[in-house]
C-alpha cells in the first residue's frame, strides 16, 4: 500500500507570532523516504516548523515544497501529509473505525473502500478487536495506535509526528519507538518526527536536526551530532549527563589555559571552551598516604596511572546498575560528571585521579562553534598538576 515517498524542502522559511520569531529562515531538505527528527528544547520552533509543513500555520517568508510542488497555497488536506498529534486528537464521539475512516470519508471515498482500508490498517496495528469502541474506552497506548492508524489509512507521502510518545509511560514509549522505526522500515515513507527527548531523537532518526531559537543548529546523523557537535548548544543539549565544560583563556605566552591544563601552541582566540563527555573521563581512586592495599584496585586502571591529568574529590556517586556516575569538583571547581564501570569501588569523599581521552574532546571558539579536538596539554608546568 506504499507509494513513492516524497521529499520535503524548506527554503528560507520564517514564521513570527507577534514579536516572537518562532522559525527564523530555516533551510532544510528531508530526502524521500527519510526519517528526520527535529529535536530541541521547548520553544525552539520545532513544532511550529512541523505545523508549517502540515499547513496548519502559514509562514511569513520562504517556501515549503512537498515532492515536486510548492504547497504554500495548498490546504492541509491536499498536501499529501498525515499528522500524529501529541494528544492524539482522536474524535471522541466517533468509534475507532470511524476515526480511522474519517479522512477517507471526507474525501468522498465509498463505504466499501473505507471498510477495506480501515481493516487493513487495523490488522497491521493490531486494532481489530477495538474497531467499535470509542477513544474514551481505550488505553493511552491503544489511542496512540489509533492515531497512527488514522495517519496510515490515507497512505500519505509524508508522515508528521508531533511528540507522539510524550504522553506514554516509559515502557510503552520504548516499545512504540521501536514500532515506529519498524513501520518506517516497512513503509519506506518520508517521516518527520518532532521530539524534545534527545535519546528518542538519536535512537530513531536517520538524520537529526537540532533546533534552538528558531534555527537549525546542526543537521547530521546521530553519530555526527553526538561525536562532532557543531557548537556549544548542541554539545550541551545532546548527551546525558551533558558534556563537561571548562572555560579557557589565553595566557601570557598565547597559549590557552584553564584549571590544570595548558594547551600547547598559540591560540587565535582569546578564550575558548573545553568540552569533555563524561565517558571520556577515566577515574581511579588515589591510594591513601597510609599503608594498606590501594582501595581503587578494582578500577579501570589498577596500579599507577599512566597519565592522571588532575585529582579531584568525588562529591556524589550515582549507581545506575550498569555504570556509575561520579560527580566531581572538576578543574577550577567546575562541576564535572564522569562515567565509570559499576565495578569501581568508590564512595563520596574519595580523592580520585582523573585522566582525559584528549582525542575525543572538543574545543569551542568564543562564538560557540567547534574548532576541533583539544590537543594533549603540557604537563608539570602548572601549579594545579598533581605531583
Amino acid at each position, binding site marked *: 500500500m506504499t507509494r513513492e515517498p516524497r521529499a520535503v524542502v524548506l527554503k528560507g522559511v520564517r514564521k513570527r507570532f507577534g514579536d516572537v520569531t518562532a522559525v527564523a529562515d530555516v533551510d532544510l531538505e528531508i530526502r524521500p523516504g527519510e526519517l528526520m527528527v527535529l529535536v530541541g528544547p521547548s520553544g525552539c520552533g520545532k513544532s511550529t516548523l512541523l505545523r508549517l509543513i502540515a499547513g*496548519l500555520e502559514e509562514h511569513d517568508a520562504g517556501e515549503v515544497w512537498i515532492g515536486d510542488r510548492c504547497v504554500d497555497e495548498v490546504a492541509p488536506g491536499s498536501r499529501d501529509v498525515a499528522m500524529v498529534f501529541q494528544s492524539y486528537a482522536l*474524535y471522541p*464521539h466517533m468509534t475507532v473505525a470511524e476515526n480511522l475512516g*474519517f*479522512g477517507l470519508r*471526507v474525501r468522498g471515498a465509498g463505504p466499501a473502500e473505507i471498510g477495506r482500508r480501515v481493516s487493513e490498517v487495523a490488522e497491521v496495528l493490531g486494532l481489530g478487536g477495538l474497531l467499535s469502541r470509542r477513544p474514551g474506552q481505550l488505553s493511552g497506548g491503544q489511542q496512540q495506535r489509533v492515531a497512527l492508524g488514522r495517519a496510515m489509512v490515507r497512505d500519505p507521502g509524508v508522515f508528521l509526528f508531533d511528540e507522539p510518545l510524550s504522553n506514554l509511560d516509559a515502557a510503552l514509549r520504548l516499545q512504540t519507538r521501536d514500532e515506529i522505526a519498524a513501520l518506517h522500515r516497512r513503509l519506506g515513507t518520508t517521516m518527520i518526527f518532532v521530539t524534545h527527548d534527545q535519546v528518542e531523537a538519536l535512537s530513531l532518526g536517520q538524520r537529526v536536526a537540532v533546533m534552538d531559537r528558531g534555527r537549525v543548529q546542526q543537521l547530521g546523523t546521530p553519530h555526527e551530532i553526538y561525536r562532532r557537535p557543531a557548537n556549544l548548544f548542541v554539545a550541551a543539549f545532546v548527551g546525558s549527563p551533558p558534556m563537561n565544560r571548562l572555560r579557557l583563556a589565553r595566557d601570557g605566552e598565547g597559549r590557552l589555559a584553564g584549571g590544570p591544563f595548558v594547551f600547547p601552541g598559540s591560540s587565535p582566540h582569546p578564550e575558548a571552551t573545553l568540552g569533555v563527555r563524561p565517558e571520556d573521563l577515566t577515574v581511579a581512586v588515589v591510594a591513601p598516604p597510609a599503608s594498606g592495599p590501594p582501595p581503587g584496585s578494582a578500577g579501570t586502571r589498577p596500579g599507577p596511572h599512566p597519565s592522571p591529568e588532575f585529582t579531584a574529590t568525588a562529591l556524589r556517586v550515582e549507581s545506575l546498575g550498569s555504570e556509575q556516575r561520579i560527580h566531581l569538583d572538576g578543574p577550577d571547581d567546575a562541576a564535572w560528571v564522569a562515567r565509570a564501570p559499576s565495578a569501581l569501588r568508590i564512595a563520596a569523599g574519595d580523592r580520585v585521579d582523573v585522566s582525559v581521552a584528549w582525542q575525543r574532546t572538543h574545543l569551542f571558539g568564543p562564538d560557540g562553534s567547534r574548532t576541533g579536538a583539544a590537543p594533549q596539554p603540557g604537563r608539570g608546568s602548572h601549579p594545579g598538576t598533581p605531583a
Partner: protein
Amino acid sequence: MSGAGATNAAGAAGVTPLVATGAAAAATAVILLVAADALSGAREQATREEARAAASLYEVPGVTEADVVSLLDGRARIVAPEAGGSGPGAFAYRAGALQPAAWIAVEPADEGNGWPWAAFVLALLGVLCMAAWAAARRRAPPPSRYPAAATLLCAALFALVAAAAQQWAHGELGAVSSARLARGLRAAGIAGAAGADPEAAARVAGLPWASGAALGEPDRIWTMPREAGEAIAADPQLRSAPRYTVVAGGATYHGGAVALREGPAGRAETPAGTLHLVFLGYEETSSPTVALIASAIGSALVVSLVLFLLPLAARPRALARTLAAWGFLAPAAALLLVFTFGPLLFSLWISLHDWRLVDPAHPFVGLENYRALLSDGGWWSAILNTGVFTLHVPAAMAVALALALLTRESRRAVRWARLALFLPSVTSVVAIAVVWKWLLNDGYGLANRALGAIGIGPVAWLTSPDVALVSLMVIGVWMVVGYQMVVFQAGLAAIPRVWYDAAKVDGAGPWQRFRHITLPGLRHTLFFVLVTSVIGSFQVFSLVYVMTEGGPLGATDVAVYHIYREAWEFLRFGNAAAMSWILFGVVFAATWLHFRLLERRGAHA
C-alpha cells in the same frame, strides 16, 4: 438507664425507645393543639359575628336594648361608644349617623369543654404503649430495625390521632355553627317582630345567605348557593323544619326558617312571611384538615430524623459531622420545603377541589377539574399556542450558534457586539415588552413607519390573529439569543483546537469540520440550552401580559397566561391549579423525552 453514659454505645442505643416515646408524646400534643386552636379560632369568629349581629339589631328601629341583651342570653353589654373598641364587640350606628351610637361588648360563649378528649386518650394510649415497651427493654439495646419500625408506628399513631382530632373538631365546629345559626335566626325574628322587612331582617341575622323567595332561585336579598337551595327545596321536611343541617355539593350548610310578619305591599314574594337563612358551617370554613395533615407529616419527619440520628450519639465525631451537614443544609431545605414543595403540594390539593375565591366552600371533586379540562377548547388552544411559540427556540439557537461562531475572535468590536447582543438577557422583560409594543404599534410604530418609507403598507404586528404570535416569537428570539450565544461561546471554547487541526490534515473542509467536530463537541451545550429554553418558553407570561393580553382573538393566549386569567380574573383556583399541573406534566414529559433521546445517541467521554 443508670450508668448509661453518652459514650456508652449500648447505653446510648438503649435510650432510643425512651427518646422516641418523648418525641411521639410531643408530636401528638402538637397535633391536638392544632385541632384545639382551629376550634378556638372558629369560636372567636363566631363571637365577632354575634357582636355584629347584635349591633345590627340595635340599629333596627323599634328594637329595645333589652332585646339586644336578650339575643345573646345576657352576654352582651351596651356601653357608650367612648368606652368601647377593645375586646370582642362591635359599634352600632343609628340611621344616618356617622358617629357610633353605642359599643356592644360581647362575652365569649362558654360552650363545650374545648378539648379533643377522644384523640387525647388515643394519643395517651399510644405513647404509654411505647413507654411501656421502652421500660420493659430498659437494659437491652433495641433491635437494629427499631428506627424504621418506630417511625412507621409513630406515623400510624399520628394519622390516627389527627383523624380523631379532625372528627372531634368537625363535631365541635358543627355545634358552634348550630349555635351561631340559632342566634342569627333569633336576631332575624326579633328584627321581624320589630317591623323590619325581610331584607333588613336577613342583614341583622348576619348570616351570609338568606332566601326570602322560592328556594333554589336567585333572590334579590342574597343568593343562596344553587346546590344548597335545591337540596332544601327538594325536601319538604327540611323546608318545614325550624332548623336543619344539609350537605350539598360536598359542603355542610346550616339553615333554618324564621317567621316574619306579613311584608308590606309589593313584597308578596315572601311566602307566608317566612325567611330562610342558610350559611356554610364553620366545619367547612374553619376546618383544621390541612393543618392537621401538615402537622402529622411534619411530626413523622421530625420523629424519623431523631430516631435515625440517635444511634450516632455514641459516636460524637460522626454526630457532630452529621449535625453540621444538616445544619448547613437546613436553611436551603427549609426554604425549599416552605416555598417550593409546600406550595406545589398545596396546588395539587387545590386542583382536587372545586376552589373558587368567591366561594367559601371548597368541596372535594377528585379529578373532575382535570376531566373538565380534557374538553376545554380554550385551554388546549392555549397549549397549542404555547407549542407554536416554543418553535422560536430552535430558530433562536441557530441564530445564537451562528453569532457565537462569528464572534469567536476576541477583538474590540466583537466584544462590543457581544455586549449589545447580551443586553436583552439582563433587561426587565416588562421594559422590553413596553418598548416593542411601541415599536410595533399599528399607527405610529417605528416598524410600520420604516416599512412605509420604502413603500410597504402597514403590518398589523400585534393586532392581527395571523401575525401576533409570530411577532412575539421574533421578539422571543431577540430576547434569548444573547444568552444562548454566550453559553455557546463557552461550549466552543471547550472544544480542543487540536481536533480542528487533525480534521484539517484529514482533509475536512469548513462545513465538514462544523458538522463533525463543532456540532458533536457542542452536543451537551446544545442540549442544556434546548432544555432550559424550552422550559422558559413554556413559561412565557410577561411578554404576552404586557403586549397582547392573549389577544387578538386568543391568538397569543399561552398556557401560563391562560392559567393566570383562570385564577385571577375568573377566580377559579381549582381549574387553574389543574391546568398548572397539566402544564407541569407537559414540561416534564418534554424534558424527559430530551434526556431519553440524548441517552439513546450514546454517551461519550
